[in-house]
């Protein structure tokens, strides 16, 4: 099973991907909100709403990835 091949580096590789995925999710939420605000001119509410969605998506990805690591499915 997975643990017998260079497992320390593999754990490090698994955990190191979580940080940037949280940042990318927040940034994408912000970008979508900003774009929709330009279209519908509802500044700043849509931008804030989608930033919150992005942060939530980042946390969702965090829980999902940590769950996968804990169940040895990554």
């Amino acid at each position, binding site marked *: 099973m997975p643990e017998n091949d260079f497992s320390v580096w593999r754990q490090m590789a*698994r955990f190191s*991907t979580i940080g*940037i995925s949280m*940042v*990318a999710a927040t940034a*994408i*939420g912000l970008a979508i909100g900003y774009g929709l605000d330009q279209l519908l001119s509802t500044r700043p509410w849509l931008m804030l709403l989608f930033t919150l*969605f992005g942060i939530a998506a980042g946390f*969702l990805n965090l829980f999902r990835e940590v769950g996968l690591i804990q169940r040895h*499915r990554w």
Partner: protein
Amino acid sequence: MATEISEEQSGGKGIWAALAILVVVNLILGVFFSSGHVSLHHAPIVQLPNFLAFLGVPGTWLPPHIFFTWVVMAILVGVAILGTRALKAVPGPVQNVVEVAIEAFCALLEQMIGKEGRQYLPLVGTAGLFILTSNLIANIPGFQAPTANWNTTVALAVTVFVSYNYFGIRKHGLVKYLKHFCGPMPLLAPIMFPIEFIGHLARPVSLSVRLFGNIFGEESVIAILLSLTWLVMPYLIWLGVMLPLSLFTAVVQTFVFIMLSMVYIAGAVEEGHGDEHH
């Protein structure tokens, strides 16, 4: 332990000779081709003149990431042709290497995705071998890695993104695949759908930026380090610290990219809804 490996057998002298050649070639190229200042967008030494100018490609030389993508393609196609030319039951050296690579990818695919993981070998294997060769090529003096350019890594990440969604839609149908985005309870669907959508969009962004940042940063640090004129100390630091780190990062970033691709494919294709959502 009765195994005695003589100095010639273990290849000890060969490795020192290869490192010496690497340092000497780098010194010669640095003396004759350096521009006196550090610019991270300096044209590489090995390059082709721009014969695609009629298509609108700018500059007098071909963009380095395009040229070195062709170099990587030539290497991979060459090894593939050499390895499969006269297939024997007891394989020769090149065929052995090709078989080892394919076995490694198939084992990872079956471990991550299950029994039908084998059908995704073209995507994952090609991406993995391309990224590995591209990352490793940067250590040759005068060469640049094509993955040190965000265009290449975005192309790879977008390909993986479109592919895993296509695999999911092909397996489950469009409506059922979109239902995966809606969370465990239908009541939460209006909140969960944008969150899942944004989370999925974050995947190609993080894949491309992670690979680009690692390889470009590695190259930048080595370029700045070797531009110091500190007798041979920069070259000793390069040999002792940066070259092993660069080789290690090349392999680790390939591994992370293909493992994440397989995780995304597995998430799109898996049966049984209750596995991932909590």
